[in-house]
């Protein structure tokens, strides 16, 4: 009987909350990265100012999130009012008219304050379809103590040759110190993000102006053999299954001399609570080969409203809050400047307080040196630095990534990997009817 009463009480409470939910409820799909989780924690500030709006969070791992929101928006499922998407999705979805334009955010939002490189990546035909929550590029993170021990000095803008030389000099396999840690796990957002950006700096490209795949060209061969040589000489074991997280763990536990990856990693590797090398990290721009393009990418996790949402106004209100200057100040106030979501606003980098953060300037420089609308040495028909903004890219690049990952594991040669990559990209492009 007691249990029954409890159940009744429970039902009563549930129905009470149901009535309270007459307020507008926004369902927000977001990725489980640290900055978003902080946003969720701080969202009480938003609901306090907007009593009519309730927030419901769906926090998912990146791949699952992407699969969920893409299925939902493409089928007009309408499960989410706000979606967290990246610079890959925005140009494709925006062109299809799947997103609500955010050009009419209030003047106080100051859209002109958004970094031009980022804003450009989120704008289609003059309309901004998503507001950047944080932006990132990639850069070199290195151990200052190991660099000194090797008798070398990291320039502000190193070349790939220097990186290879330094990696070899820093490697001490007996002490489990590996000169260079890079992504090797197959995936379009894993090893292919790194390799595509790197290929840009070697003068390679995915497609020519007729959308023909270019893996049979010399620059790609140079890119891949350089990467393989360096990783085999100075990389950690098991590199072919290392993604961002695996490398982060390696770097934080002091096993990498250098790591070239997302700029947001800077705040993790300098965080004394989780990193054993927090006070020994230096930063430099992603390397180049003197051809005019550096090997850094550009990405922005952004908030967008799917077209057809019935709660557009409330959703816009939330987005204006989460990507505002005030939100940055709120985070700085509660958690310190180092934890502010980086890479979106000029005013943040003009702030003298923020300039004290060790990686602030290098992040800004890296972002500014990436150009998604003009990513390669030669002219290409596509947008995107570490990706090609066409719907087919995720599948193709993951399959190509498998080939390159196999080459890194040593099960096939670089030539075979490139040949396979060329063939399977050609098949996919023919199937998708880019050419006959």
């Amino acid at each position: 009987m007691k249990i029954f009463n409890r159940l009744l009480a429970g039902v009563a409470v549930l129905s009470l909350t149901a009535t309270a939910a007459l307020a507008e409820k926004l369902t927000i799909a977001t990725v489980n990265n640290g900055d978003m989780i902080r946003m969720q924690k701080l969202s009480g500030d938003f609901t306090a100012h907007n009593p009519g709006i309730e927030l419901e969070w769906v926090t998912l791992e990146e791949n699952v999130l992407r699969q969920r929101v893409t299925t939902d928006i493409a089928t007009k499922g309408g499960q989410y009012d706000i979606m967290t998407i990246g610079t890959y999705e925005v140009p494709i979805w925006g062109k299809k008219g799947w997103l609500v334009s955010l050009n009419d955010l209030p003047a106080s939002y100051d859209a002109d304050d958004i970094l031009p490189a980022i804003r450009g990546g989120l704008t289609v035909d003059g309309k901004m379809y998503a507001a950047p929550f944080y932006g990132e590029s990639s850069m070199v993170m290195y151990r200052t103590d190991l660099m000194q021990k090797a008798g070398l000095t990291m320039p502000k803008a190193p070349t790939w040759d220097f990186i290879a030389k330094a990696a070899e000099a820093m490697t001490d396999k007996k002490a489990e110190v590996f000169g260079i840690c890079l992504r090797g796990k197959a995936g379009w957002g894993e090893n292919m993000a790194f390799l595509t950006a790197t290929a840009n700096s070697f003068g390679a490209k995915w497609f020519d102006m007729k959308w023909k795949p270019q893996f049979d060209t010399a620059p790609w061969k140079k890119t891949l053999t350089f990467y393989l040589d360096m990783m085999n000489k100075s990389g950690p074991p098991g590199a072919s299954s290392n993604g961002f997280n695996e490398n982060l763990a390696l770097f934080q536990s002091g096993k990498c001399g250098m790591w070239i990856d997302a700029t947001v990693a800077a705040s993790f590797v300098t965080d004394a609570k989780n990193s054993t090398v927090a006070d020994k990290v230096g930063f430099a721009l992603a390397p180049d080969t003197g051809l005019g393009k550096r090997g850094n990418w550009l990405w922005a996790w952004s908030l967008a409203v799917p077209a057809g949402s019935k709660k557009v106004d409330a959703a816009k209100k939330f987005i204006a809050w989460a990507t505002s200057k005030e939100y940055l100040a709120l985070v700085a106030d509660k958690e310190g400047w180092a934890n502010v979501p980086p890479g979106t606003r000029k005013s943040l980098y003009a702030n003298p307080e923020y300039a004290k953060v060790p990686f602030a300037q290098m992040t800004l420089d890296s972002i500014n040196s990436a150009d998604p609308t003009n990513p390669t040495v030669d002219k290409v028909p596509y947008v995107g630095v570490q990706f090609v903004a066409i719907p087919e890219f995720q599948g193709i690049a993951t399959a190509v990534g498998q080939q390159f990952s196999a080459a890194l594991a040593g099960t096939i040669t670089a030539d075979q990997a490139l040949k396979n990559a060329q063939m399977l990209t050609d098949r996919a492009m023919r199937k998708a009817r880019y050419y006959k």
Partner: protein
Amino acid sequence: MATDHSRLAGRFMISPAVLLLLGWMIVPLSMTIYFSFLNYNLLSPGMEEFIGLTNYEFFLTDPAFFDALGNTLLLVGGVLVITIIGGVGLALLLDQPMWGQGIVRILVIAPFFVMPTVSALVWKNMFMNPVNGLFAHAAKFMGLEPFDFLAHAPLFSIILIVAWQWLPFATLILLTALQSLDKEQLEAAKMDGARKFRRFYYIVLPHLARAITVVILIQTIFLLSVFAEILVTTNGGPGTASTNITYLVYLQSLLQFDVGSGSAGGIVAVVLANIVAFFLMRMIGKNLEA
């Protein structure tokens, strides 16, 4: 023996299950078949057009297809061998008198309760990682070079992870079967002086035949569609070394949102699965009679 009346009742009782499954099968399946003839990308709605067998052609001529086919069979076969041999052994062991039997049982059964994603993450990061994993630490402790499981033995590693998850299931089913074994018969065989191995081979094993059949059939169904473990650990690589059919379909349909190809792949997978099932039934189906 059965009367017409009970026959009719039998039809009647079986029908909800059959009708429901029929609906579950026919509706999505016919939609899938229909989609498989279309050039249909989820990201380009409104552009669907009939393209005949092109999707099938591309799926079947995909160089990854035969690798995936082989990997699928290896994965299913490998896990079945490990779980059945291990399961029989464990069931025999757990059937013996011992202290703390209940606790040991729950220890053995526990992996079955772990969600596939979680177990894959745990194995990948905390055990098989060649730098931070426990296996690497153990190897270094013994003065050996740590082995890079996921790069050099990707399929084997996945078989190991999946087998760990399914071993409890096999053990459980076999143990229950073992406990219904007629103990008197065993005692009688003992009296006759039958050796342990002979007792096992002529009495225990035949008794377990049906349970083994159940294990094989049910596991095969789940093993044919192993997916989360691959996605989390190797992403199907290096190369196509650990890509199975399900993962290949995933590459087509969810990563590329190419519903047409994904559907064609799905249909191919169904056909293949049914072929496997057909042979399986011919090989072991007789155990289900009786």
